[in-house]
């Protein structure tokens, strides 16, 4: 949460006292509680609306299901034919919301700051796919789920948004951002910690 009168954001893993990085057997897991997140809904078939969004935040919304676009410092994740999540730098979500609200005022659309609804677990390394596959029914082979791909799915029965942000060929291996509702964060962190072994 950015500046303002509200209390500072607190990680749902705050009780772990900072022990929120695990590196073991070719897998690295770390919490990134700080990314700003904005939910955006509107008519993807309306070119005028899409142009207004582009003019406001300078990113093209992905049109293909379960894909993403990136124009630093923003990413846009496809969630539904009429719904996206914009991910931005910590503290900038207020500005993104203000820009979007100005752009969509004349349209049937909605803009909601959902920054604190979810935290992000960043899972990376050569073993990351196998680890995810322990609790996820998605086809996680690189030919089916690769760089930039997005999925809303179940991980160990928790509803998550999965986003691959770095290619498998990268030195650090593939990187997956797992967006988890904060009320599930402690549970899913425990599950991942156990699954890493």
């Amino acid at each position, binding site marked *: 949460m950015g500046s303002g009168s509200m209390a500072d954001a607190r990680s749902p893993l705050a009780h772990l006292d900072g022990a929120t990085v695990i590196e073991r057997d070719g897998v690295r897991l770390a919490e990134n509680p700080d990314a700003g997140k904005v939910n955006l809904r509107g008519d993807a078939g309306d070119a005028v609306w899409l142009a207004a969004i582009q003019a406001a935040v300078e990113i093209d919304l992905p049109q293909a*299901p*379960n894909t993403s676009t990136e124009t630093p410092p923003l990413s846009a994740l496809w969630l539904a*034919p009429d719904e996206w999540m914009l991910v931005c730098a910590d503290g900038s979500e207020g500005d993104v919301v203000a820009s979007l609200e100005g752009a969509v005022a004349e349209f049937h659309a909605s803009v909601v700051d959902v920054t604190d609804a979810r935290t992000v677990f960043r899972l990376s390394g050569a073993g990351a796919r196998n680890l995810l596959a322990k609790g996820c029914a*998605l086809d996680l082979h690189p030919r089916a789920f690769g760089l930039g791909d997005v*999925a*809303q799915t179940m991980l160990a029965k928790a509803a998550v948004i999965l986003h691959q942000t770095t290619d498998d060929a990268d030195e650090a291996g593939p990187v997956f951002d797992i967006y988890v509702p904060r009320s599930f964060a402690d549970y899913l962190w425990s599950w991942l910690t156990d699954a890493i072994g």
Partner: protein
Amino acid sequence: MLLIPCPWCGERDVHEFHCGGEAHITRPAGADTIDDAAWADYLFMRQNPKGLYYERWNHAHGCRKWFHVVRDTVSDQILAVYQMDEAPPDIPGRSS
């Protein structure tokens, strides 16, 4: 594992979905004047066939969109998927 083909997300595990029951049931006109039997028929009576079933599904843990599925209740084979505003398709060689 039963895979349901979402029109947007492709094949996903059935656990990501919510089944909305039989499709193409029209709310009767004049709900304030029809008799209890007709209203109960609308609310509760379903075909429950052994064979082709036209039903609604929602990708609850994915894109959250509703769509139609034609499923064989004997084999769980899915024979067609179509949008909410589309008419039920004929399945060649099969009668519903």
